[in-house]
């Protein structure tokens, strides 16, 4: 929405009717509606801008559209910095036919996912420190493959370990506007349970570098990110 974004989008959309004025907001709302309905994936404001005629303000149109669908059978939802239309959760019972079996996740995978979501960006060593066991490669791979987590930035700590963060797919799947909306996040933070509290002296849990499975992975992963 910033200037940069507007001009950025402008270059792509311009060809159509750059010489004309932007369509009225009601019309823009229709356009956003059409684009969101047509897509199964969330669409970013930036992409909306790129697809709509020059000068449109999809962010504003979204405000109206969202309101219009309040209480309806489908809703306009925010997923990270993107938007999507999803059926109202109370009508899920009508959709048995559409229900997709999600792969059963192991307890380890679920815990790892929750730790990444609540502590992100978080390193493998930190996950292991919290769970008290080493994290198997398969668990992380499974979450990566489901595209619920991805690699984040490297930590600026010795060894520059990679971190994990949750993805837009994760937010979409769990109906979260963003990672700050995770249930109980505030309470956990207030209770200091999301602090990275270093152990006093040596505690022989998985934080112990000796046991860290992360150690041997580190070089392999670092290759991925080295440019």
């Amino acid at each position, binding site marked *: 929405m910033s200037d940069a974004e507007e001009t950025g989008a402008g270059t792509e959309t311009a060809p159509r009717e750059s010489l004309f004025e932007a369509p009225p907001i009601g019309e823009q709302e229709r356009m956003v509606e059409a684009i969101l*309905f*047509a*897509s*199964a*994936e969330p669409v970013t404001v930036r992409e909306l801008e790129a*697809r709509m005629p020059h000068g449109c303000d999809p962010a504003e149109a979204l405000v109206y559209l969202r309101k219009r669908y309040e209480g309806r059978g489908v809703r306009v939802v925010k997923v990270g910095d993107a938007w*999507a*239309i*999803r*059926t*109202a*959760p109370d009508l*899920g019972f009508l*959709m048995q036919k*559409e*229900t*997709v079996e*999600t792969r059963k996740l192991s*307890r*380890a995978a*679920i*815990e790892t*996912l*929750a*730790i990444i*979501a*609540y502590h992100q960006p978080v390193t493998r060593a930190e996950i292991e420190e*919290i*769970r*008290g*066991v080493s994290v198997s490669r398969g668990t992380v791979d499974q979450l990566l493959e489901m595209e619920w987590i991805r690699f984040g930035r490297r930590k600026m700590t010795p060894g520059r370990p990679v971190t994990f963060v949750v993805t837009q797919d994760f937010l*979409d*799947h*769990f*109906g*979260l506007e963003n990672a700050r909306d*995770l*249930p*109980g996040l505030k309470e*956990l933070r207030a*209770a200091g*349970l999301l602090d990275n*509290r270093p*152990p*006093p*002296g040596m*505690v*022989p*849990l*998985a934080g112990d570098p000796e*046991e860290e499975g992360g150690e041997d992975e580190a070089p392999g992963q670092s290759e991925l990110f080295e440019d």
Partner: protein
Amino acid sequence: MTDEFESNIETLSVAERLAAEALIVDVDGFEGPLDLLLTLSRTQKVDLRKISVLQLARQYLAFVEQAKALRIELAADYLVMAAWLAYLKSRLLLPPDPTEEGPSGEELAAHLAFQLERLQAMRDAAARLMARDRLGRDFFARGLPEGVERVRKVQYTATLLDLMQGYARIRTRDEFRPFVMDRDSVYTMEQALERMRGLIGFAGQWTDISSWLPDGWDGDPVKWRSATAATFAASLELVKEGHAEIRQSETFAPIQLRKREKRHE
């Protein structure tokens, strides 16, 4: 094994025995010592913040002892934890030694309590997360998405340089075309072969290859050269096919050709 098992738990109450069995049976199910500690701490039925780490350490050590007695192989990290908890226990029981470096028993205990509480909190959070309305189960995306159609428009370009190079390429080719097209003084191997196929049947005697040249090709040296080459190549072809024999007595001596006699077996 069975005997030992029974004699060992005989002394325990039924409730204790059940609990012990549950633990032992589940030993593989624990995800490491921290998980086991968390499970043990539940028996204290207190807020994790008020947990007695000392009591927990005792429980854990009892568990490890029992597992040993039952000859249950415990992973190394369970034993490392046991050793550390034994150390912690002693630190908690003995009055602090002011000369000793490092964190106090209380600090270590507090951190362990924190770790347990944090792990429990993450488990609760994971449960709440998984219990949320979920895409594809409770709410749904568009079932019939209309994909964005990529309209690919190809725009062809060429520069003046391309154009001129293209033209130059053709014209350069043209320069040489007259020589190739000029068939007047070129006698091809195909022509020679055709001519010789008709004649070879009559060549019972060794005949000098130069006598095979077509009429009018032995005057002009250019034509003679082409005809000789073609005739020689055609001769080799006939030999290869088994229709003729070829010979040359020495280097630069005349090359001779004759029909190959059919062998009668």
